[in-house]
């Protein structure tokens, strides 16, 4: 039977959710106007005042915030509370540019942890579970978010952080962890290491995994579910809006319920900024509804997805977002064709390879080179050159079919593709060096 952490909120009638949102939005906008000069200036430039925002129907009038705004505002320009009222800072990794820091009051932390608790309960978590958290702890929101959520549910929490995989597995065996929280690529890595250590899914007690913080495909989900003997649930969030738990999957596993009592979602055309109707594919935009320290109005996530209010069999009424299909900024244009790393990954998993791959794009003369390095698995390994060459050609053919352009596929040894134990490096675009 489906369980909920806060059933009265998670299964509230849609009219009630709308009423909460209207009320909260008005006061959130007022709070920002009064306390954040940076955003007040943006509103004034557009000629909007808090009085113009009476309900969610007025949302489109507000200006967007972008990642660039957050970087320009670093560190304090978007802070809406005195620092003395804040209790926590979290930060993005800063790999794509300057860091973004987010601030939290105690209430902000509590609401964030509640969101994570909803995700854990939706994945079947109860106070009787042993929850192994191997997201990184520290400035990264993954570890602290799921850790707090696990406490709220009352699970026995193993604050492992990432890395030292053999020790992770030893704890998993000895303490009989039932729920695993980490990035999906790390879940794959744990599966591989488990096998290398001579164990299988029969030896562990995991029943569910909550995986997020990077893109992953349905094929990767099936791969993880089979290897670890679990159900794998998606979780979504970003440091800017609090961290993981903005949305999460339920038993139906067909999209993630957005915690609409805290976040208002829109889909826009990434080129024009125009709001698109429900069901359209476009860029996801979030407006926080009750954040104290770091409220964000109309923040452009750059994630491309679809929203759906179709009735869900789990009983939750909150709107669902699809798994992000790519980012408006990680799309590559190779030889004039749009390529998302997720497409490459889907082909690999369908053909029986692991999701350990790297795309290298470069330019020779005026032509783009497109190389895909793939770690060879035992299932796909053959001991004659003829068969291996055939496998490379089959992979390249399947990718050509998917993308319309032909990559050069290279088989490489397992674990030879650089991976951090957090996020994997999927794309190396050397063309930028020449520009």
């Amino acid at each position, binding site marked *: 039977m489906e369980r909920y952490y806060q059933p009265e909120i998670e299964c509230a009638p849609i009219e009630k959710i709308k009423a909460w949102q209207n009320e909260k939005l008005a006061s959130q906008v007022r709070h920002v106007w009064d306390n954040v000069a940076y955003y007040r200036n943006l509103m004034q430039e557009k000629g909007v005042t808090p009085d113009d925002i009476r309900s969610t129907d007025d949302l489109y009038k507000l200006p967007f915030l972008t990642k660039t705004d957050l970087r320009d505002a670093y560190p304090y320009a978007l802070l809406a509370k005195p620092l003395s009222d804040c209790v926590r800072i979290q930060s993005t990794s800063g790999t794509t540019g300057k860091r973004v820091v987010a601030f939290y009051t105690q209430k902000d932390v509590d609401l964030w942890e509640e969101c994570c608790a909803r995700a854990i309960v939706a994945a079947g978590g109860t106070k009787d579970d042993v929850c192994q958290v191997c997201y990184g702890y520290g400035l990264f929101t993954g570890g602290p978010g799921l850790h707090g959520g696990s406490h709220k549910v009352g699970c026995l929490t193993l604050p492992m952080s990432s890395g030292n995989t053999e020790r992770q597995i030893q704890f998993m065996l000895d303490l009989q962890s039932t729920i695993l929280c980490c990035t999906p690529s790390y879940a794959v890595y744990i599966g591989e290491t488990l096998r*290398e250590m001579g164990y299988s899914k029969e030896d562990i007690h995991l029943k569910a995994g909550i995986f997020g913080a990077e893109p992953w495909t349905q094929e990767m989900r099936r791969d993880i579910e089979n290897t670890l003997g679990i159900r794998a649930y998606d979780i979504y969030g970003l440091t800017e809006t609090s961290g993981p738990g903005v949305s999460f999957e339920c038993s139906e596993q067909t999209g993630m319920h957005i915690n609409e009592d805290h976040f208002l979602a829109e889909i826009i055309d990434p080129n024009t900024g125009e709001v698109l109707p429900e069901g359209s594919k476009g860029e996801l935009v979030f407006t926080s509804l009750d954040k104290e320290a770091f409220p964000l109005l109309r923040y452009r996530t750059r994630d491309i997805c679809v929203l759906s209010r179709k009735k869900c069999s789990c009983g939750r009424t909150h709107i669902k977002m699809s798994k992000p299909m790519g980012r408006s900024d990680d799309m590559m244009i190779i030889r004039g064709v749009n390529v998302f790393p997720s497409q490459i990954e889907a082909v690999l998993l369908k053909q029986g390879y692991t999701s350990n791959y790297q795309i290298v794009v470069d330019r020779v003369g005026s032509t783009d080179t497109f190389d895909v390095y793939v*770690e*060879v*698995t*035992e299932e796909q*390994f053959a*001991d*004659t*050159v*003829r068969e*291996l*060459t055939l496998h490379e050609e089959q992979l390249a053919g399947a990718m050509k079919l998917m993308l319309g352009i032909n990559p050069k596929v*290279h*088989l*490489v*040894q*397992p*674990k*030879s593709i650089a991976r951090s134990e957090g996020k994997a490096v999927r794309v190396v675009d050397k063309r930028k060096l020449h520009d």
Partner: protein
Amino acid sequence: MSVKQVSVFLENKSGQLADVCAVLAENGMSLRALSIADTKEYGILRVIVPDADGALEVLRRGGYTCKLTQVLAVEIDDRPGGMAYVLQVLSEAEISVDYAYAFISHKAGYAHMILRVSDIDETVKALTEADIRTLEMDSLLTE
């Protein structure tokens, strides 16, 4: 009437062969025979060791992609035409050879040939009819 061979995927980078041999050496595994097929980007190392299952296990633990392949070990006369005779028999039986490599036997006057073919039973039958001896792992190691 066949033996287990261990095949290992290796990238074409310096030190790869040394590393895989070191793993086998550390585990006290001696090589009876080896051959390498290579392309511009990768190679396939094929080895005959006394304990193929054990070798597979330690190589897997070392992070290598490897597998066991059933191959034929054939005794040939160590004289001009010894190998040609075996291949002629196979050719007449319309059996094609995926790959082959040979090494000297401990027994004077003989050599061994390792063959990978698609149908082992049919091949053994053709060889036996021509009085060519195929070897089990035990005799391959001692002879």
